[in-house]
Structures are given as C-alpha cells and as structure tokens.
C-alpha cells in the first residue's frame, strides 16, 4: 500500500476534523483556535461531545427496549461503540441503526445476551413501519368479491408497513414488555416467536403468529398464490387452519391488494 499523498493530507480539512470527532485518540486537528489564537482541546471537544451525545440519544430513541434491557449506563457504551463502527450514512436519524442487530450479535461484551440482536431487529422494523407510506390495507370483504374458481390463484401484495420475522427468541415479547416498562422475568427465553409487524393506519402492531402463519404469510409476501401458500403452510404444520389464517392475515393489515 502506498502512503497517503501529501496533497490529500494537506487538503483534508474535513477528513481530519471528522476523524477526530469520532475517535478521541486522534489529535485535535491543527489550525483550530480560541480567541487567544491558541489551539484548544476543550473547544474542539464541544463538537466531539455534541456528535457523540446526539447520536447516543438517537440510538436510545430508536431502541428503547434495548436501552431498558441493558440499562442506561451500559447502553451508552454500547451505542458509543456502535456509532464508531457504524456512523450514520445519511441525515434521517429514524433510519439509523439498521446494523445494530448484527453488531450486537458480534459484540463480545453482550455474548451472554444472545436475544438482544433479534430484539434490536424487531425495534428497527417497528420504527420503519411507523414511518412507512400510508396505504389502505386490504379489507376482509375483497377476497369474497373474487369468483370462487379464481380464489386459488389470487396473489397478495404486501402492505408498505409489513415485516415478518422468525426469531429463536421471544423477541417481540421482550420488546413490548420493555417498551411498556413492564416486568419480563416470566418470559420463557426458550420459546421462539414468529413475528409480524403491520401498521394498518397509524398504530404499529406487533403480532406473534400462530403455527403455520409464518410460512403462510411469508409465502404470500414472496409472491406465491393463495393456493400455493396454503400448500406450503399445510406441509409445514399439522392442522393448519386455513380460514382462520386467512381472516387473521386480512384483519391485521399485512396486505394491501389482491392481484389476479
């Protein structure tokens, strides 16, 4: 690797500035002075603090359940490490933290809390659902309007706010309880959850799907016909209750349109 050319070094005002903001080990950039014309670590540190504190706040706003699960103090060090490794890539802060789940999975200090990663994924999906486009969900009656012989080949278009996820942990319960500030000592960590997030109007719903629901809704969201999706779901669980699953999926607003 060739050394950095001098010109890049000399012209890199904002490179030097931004590197020093995120890494306290990096020296204060040259040429920044107080009223006496002298460099001032303390003055530069105002920017350092603003950047870090505001991004830690943003992470806390986006991941309130994680914050409660790990405690305020530990959350700060967790968020700080995440921010250094994955600084935001754009100015919309409610979209910040997409990689937090993966980060938590690989961050040794939380290795004993392997469910945190999925809770972070559910919180991030919740937030994206909260901000998703306003689209009318499919009404239950619309399936009834389709002629009997066409029902099997109906395809369902996912709603803009829907997200479906299989966790080996009770990630939705952990999120909901911690967001409510409720006790979660009775949650059985050995029970996984199939999670569906939707936002039919303004309120985001976090649903734990019944058996077969994950296979059924995933297949539909993946573009399978109703008949094919039902087949996949029936093959995956015994006693798949198709009518109940269809009405459940329609009521929760997971889809917005039927295509034939």
């Amino acid at each position, binding site marked *: 690797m060739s050394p950095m050319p001098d010109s890049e070094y000399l012209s890199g*005002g*904002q*490179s030097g*500035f*931004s590197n020093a*903001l*995120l890494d306290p080990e990096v020296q204060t950039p040259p*040429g*920044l*002075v*107080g*009223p*006496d*014309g002298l460099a*001032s*670590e*303390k*003055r*530069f540190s*105002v*920017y350092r603090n*603003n*950047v870090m504190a*505001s*991004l830690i706040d*943003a992470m806390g706003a986006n991941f309130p359940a994680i914050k409660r699960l790990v405690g305020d103090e530990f959350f700060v060090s967790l968020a700080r490490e995440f921010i250094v490794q994955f*600084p*935001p*890539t*754009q*100015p*919309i*802060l*409610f979209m910040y933290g997409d990689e937090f789940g993966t980060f938590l999975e690989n961050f040794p200090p939380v290795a004993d809390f392997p469910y945190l990663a999925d809770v972070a994924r559910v919180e991030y999906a919740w937030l994206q659902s*909260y*901000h*998703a*486009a*306003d*689209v009318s969900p499919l009404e239950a009656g619309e399936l009834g309007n389709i002629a009997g012989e066409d029902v099997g080949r109906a395809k369902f278009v996912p709603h*803009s*706010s829907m997200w479906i996820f299989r966790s080996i942990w009770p990630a939705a319960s952990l999120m909901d309880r911690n967001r409510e500030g409720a006790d979660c000592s009775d949650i059985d960590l050995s029970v996984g959850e199939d999670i569906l997030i939707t*936002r039919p109007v*303004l309120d985001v719903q976090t649903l734990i799907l019944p058996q077969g629901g994950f296979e059924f809704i995933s297949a539909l969201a993946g573009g399978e016909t109703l008949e094919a999706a039902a087949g996949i779901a029936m093959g995956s669980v015994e006693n798949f209750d198709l009518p109940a699953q269809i009405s459940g999926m329609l009521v929760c607003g997971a889809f917005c349109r039927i295509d034939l």
Partner: protein
Amino acid sequence: MNELNSNDRGPFSIGSEIPARSGAGLKAEHVEEILSSRADIGFFEVHAENYMGAGGVPHRQLGEIRDKYPLSLHGVGLSIGGEDPLNMDHLKRLAELNRRYQPGLFSEHLAWSSHDGAYLNDLLPVPYDEATLDRVCDHVDLVQEVVGRQMLLENPSTYVAFEQSTMSEIDFIKTIAERTGCGLLLDVNNIYVSATNHEFSPEDYLDAFPINLVGEVHLAGHAPDEDEAGRPLLIDAHDRKVADVVWALYERLIAKTGGLPTLIEWDDDIPAWPILLKEAEIAEGILSNFQERADHVANA
C-alpha cells in the same frame, strides 16, 4: 380534496406566508395540546429531517398543523458547508417536502454535517476563505435550483475559529447572499454564543449584519461552560429559556428591522407546551411594542 376538508381549513392553509409574529419549533409531544387549545401563535417551524419518512403519525400531525398555522421548514442535515458534493438524494427529499407542504419559509445552515459518507449530526464550522466561499455559493445555488425557491441561510454558533480564515463571518455571509440571492436567517442566540466564544462584541456584529436580507430570526437558550483557560465557552444547547442578554440583543435588532418572523427553538429538555408558548409570547410582546411605536410615529 372534498368539500368537508376545505371547509375545515383555517385561514393559514397551504403555502401561506409567515407573518411578522413569533413562532415555535414544533415537537411531536406538543401537537395534541396545540390543536386542542387552538394555541394563538404566529407559525410553527419543523426540522425537515423528522418528516422524511413516507407516512404515518409525523405527516398526519404536520398536515393538521399546516392546516391551521403558517409553516416554516428548517433543514438541519444538508451539509451546505461540506467539502463533499451535496447529497442529491437528501436535497431531493427537501424539494419534495417543500412541494408537499409549501412552507412560507425554507432555511438551512452555514455548516457541514456529513463527510465521506458519514453523517455526524452536528452543525460543524467552516473556515471563512475564498475556496470555502466558492463551494458554499455553488451549494446554495444548487439548493435553490433543485428546490425551486429562495432559501434562508443561518449564521452559526461556533466554538473554534480557523487560522486559515481570511474574512469575517459577516463578509462571508453577505457575499454568499449577494452571489446566490439567498436570504438570511439571523439567529440572535448564535450571535451571542459566538461573540462570547470568540470575544467580539455581539452588538457590533448585529450592527454590521446585512439586516435588510434577514427573512427570519431565531432565539434559543444556551448553556454556560468554560475552556481550559477559564474563559467562558457558551454551548448552543437549545435546552432552556432564552437568556436576558439575548432578549436585549433581539430588542436592538427589532428596533432596526421592525417586525420579523421570530422562532423560539427548544430542542432538548423539551418543556411543557405552555412554557414554550410563554417564550414565544415574550418575543411577540417585543414585536408588538415596536409595532405600536412605529404606528405611533406613522400617525403622528
């Protein structure tokens, strides 16, 4: 639009101008109380980035506010002072918000916040030299072209000065406005914060500022600190009431300019709505005092 909706609209429907009254930065937690109490306030200003999602509660709230009050749109993340080219996706989102809500005023900062793909979420300072001036002017030109309207550029709060600066902040800002045709947003708290931090007179700054180009005023609270030599270091914290010294500067400004749309910014440790409204009422009192005096002079 159906008839019911259009009948529901208040006098300040979409696209209405911002009056020379006081306004407040809009916070989601205040919206219900504002609407139910029919708060008497001149306008609201929002941070554009909070409304860059596609839908949901934020747009529902903003739509309801916009139907009842004039609206000002304030970008905090465009990085106009950045060495990197402007983020075109972000600029297009700003243009889309302007199209959707047609705010009476649209403003951004003389600062940078993004570099090399990272967004740093702070308003970072720029050196006042020719190369930076050219770059900022190009960026302001591009913003006004893409958004299709005039923008106001806000004077910054700064904590360090650049050895490489070759001109004053005021000359720098004035030249940008002359070259690009942008207007200016004068943040009076920023004047006081920077004046304290760099040991210049805030009154001199105010008196030298091209006030004929100012389309809006900001007021906010600052937090006191000191540097390692024990000199005062003020932080532009937006977390408390406006300081008395800043109110005095504001009165000095309004005595020169007459009425201007004046916003109270309170973004951290956000108080209950009546406390924020009270700050706006203080500004409104100063505005109407000078208005009455002006009317008196005109009628005499």
